[in-house]
């Protein structure tokens, strides 16, 4: 475990009613870097993310944030420090401003910056603050969800296929905004995607998960130019797009 690793997973296993979803996963995410988690649908990527902010509990293994076992941290503090953006954003009834201020409001606080600043950061005009959340397009919803996560002033961002439900243009814009925010704020990010090109564009490192097991891990260029395993090469070649949940 290096001093500069913000997140470290050690031998993490997750079983759900006896079935192995993730097995013996270990890796580290250096501070300020973006890690892409790649893998086919059903590989266990979303489950892996939900372990990192303790929305779910590993069956075995330990996860460290800044060297501390996350089970020893106050769970509310952990979740404030480790923000999450889901594939399909859930906005609450009310205005965009209400939603952006929602995270801090759960603790009776206000966001550190004015709402307009978060809107600007996600590329929306200040007038959006008063908009009803019902009137937004998919891309706008995802931007508001990103702004809402940022208003908690997180140190780590967990992104679960944040662009997968969007059309091409919106997906591209959201991808750029997320990358920009991460770099600008120096966030550490774990970015789940099954889009190889996206992983190549945005990430510093890659972890490939197939059937609940870590198949490959390394710097993004290395992974894309010289994958170490047969399964890794097959995945890159696009041969492994079907659900493969068997743990071998």
């Amino acid at each position: 475990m290096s001093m500069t690793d913000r997140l470290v997973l050690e031998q993490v296993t997750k079983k759900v009613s006896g079935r192995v979803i993730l097995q013996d996963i270990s890796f580290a995410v250096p501070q300020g870097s973006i890690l892409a988690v790649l893998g086919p649908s059903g590989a266990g990527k979303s489950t892996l993310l939900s372990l990192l902010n303790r929305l779910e509990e590993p069956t075995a293994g330990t996860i460290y944030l800044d060297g501390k076992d996350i089970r020893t941290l106050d769970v509310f503090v952990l979740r404030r420090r480790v923000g999450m953006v889901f594939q399909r954003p859930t906005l609450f009834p009310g205005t965009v401003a209400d939603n952006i201020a929602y995270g801090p409001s759960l603790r009776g606080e206000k966001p550190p910056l004015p709402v307009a600043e978060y809107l600007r950061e996600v590329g929306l005009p200040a007038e959006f603050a008063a908009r009803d959340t019902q009137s937004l397009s998919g891309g706008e919803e995802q931007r508001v969800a990103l702004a809402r996560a940022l208003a908690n002033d997180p140190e780590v961002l967990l992104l679960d296929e944040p662009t997968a439900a969007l059309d091409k243009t919106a997906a591209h814009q959201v991808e750029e905004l997320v990358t920009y925010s991460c770099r600008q704020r120096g966030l550490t990010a774990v970015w789940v995607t099954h889009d190889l090109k996206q992983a190549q564009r945005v990430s510093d490192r890659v972890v490939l998960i197939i059937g609940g097991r870590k198949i490959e891990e390394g710097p993004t260029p290395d992974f894309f130019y010289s994958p170490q395993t047969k399964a890794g090469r097959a995945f890159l070649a696009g041969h492994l797009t079907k659900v493969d949940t068997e743990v071998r």
Partner: protein
Amino acid sequence: MSYLSLTLSLSFVGLAMLISFWQRLKLERDLFIGTVRAFIQLTAVGYLLKFIFNLASWQYVALMLGVMVLVAGQNAARRAEGLPNAFFLVAPAIAVAETITLGMLVGLGIIPFTPQYVIPISGMIIGNAMVASGLTLNRLRAEITARRAAILTTLALGGTSRQAAEPALKAAVKAGMIPTVDSMKTVGLVQLPGMMTGQIIAGISPVEAVKYQILVQFMLSASVGITSMLVALFGYRLFFTSAHQLRLPSTNPSR
């Protein structure tokens, strides 16, 4: 009413059996069992009540109320499939509602603390609380399942399970109270309540019977409100771990 006319009332069951036989509904057996059970249970309760009324001892009244609460709690908990500890939630909620409502009725001098009043009125309080707690629990589960994404969003932003469950909680309390509130709106117009009907038949003036019915209606709204609120307030915890993680019972639909 004479035993002869009571015996003759069996002809109604006979009529129902004839219909079942004629239409091949195959309900004869169930009808027979139902008839026998209704006869035995009601007769037994009649004698039991007579016994308790004669004793006029508060210990026996308390014992009877305790049994009523336990049976009601078990019945309501059975409806909440997949929630193994539902009984320990529902039975205390019903007990609290019964205690508060009955306490107010007696404390304010609205009814005297005699078995003749306390037991039938408690029967109504507990029976309605039982139905309300079943409705509240089932609705709570349905709302939490349906709002899974919103609940996870609130938790992920650092909210407590209580904050995450708040909308589901409100909907569940409402669902538990709605039948009672609705019946307050239509009572007397659509149906004459059983207690009032019984009093009128037994020869009590309709105006007098109505007074009691109004009392009953108001007190039921209190007991149902208390039960639903308690069941929802404590029941949402069954769906979360102590680390504020959502834990849906039994199978996990559409992840």
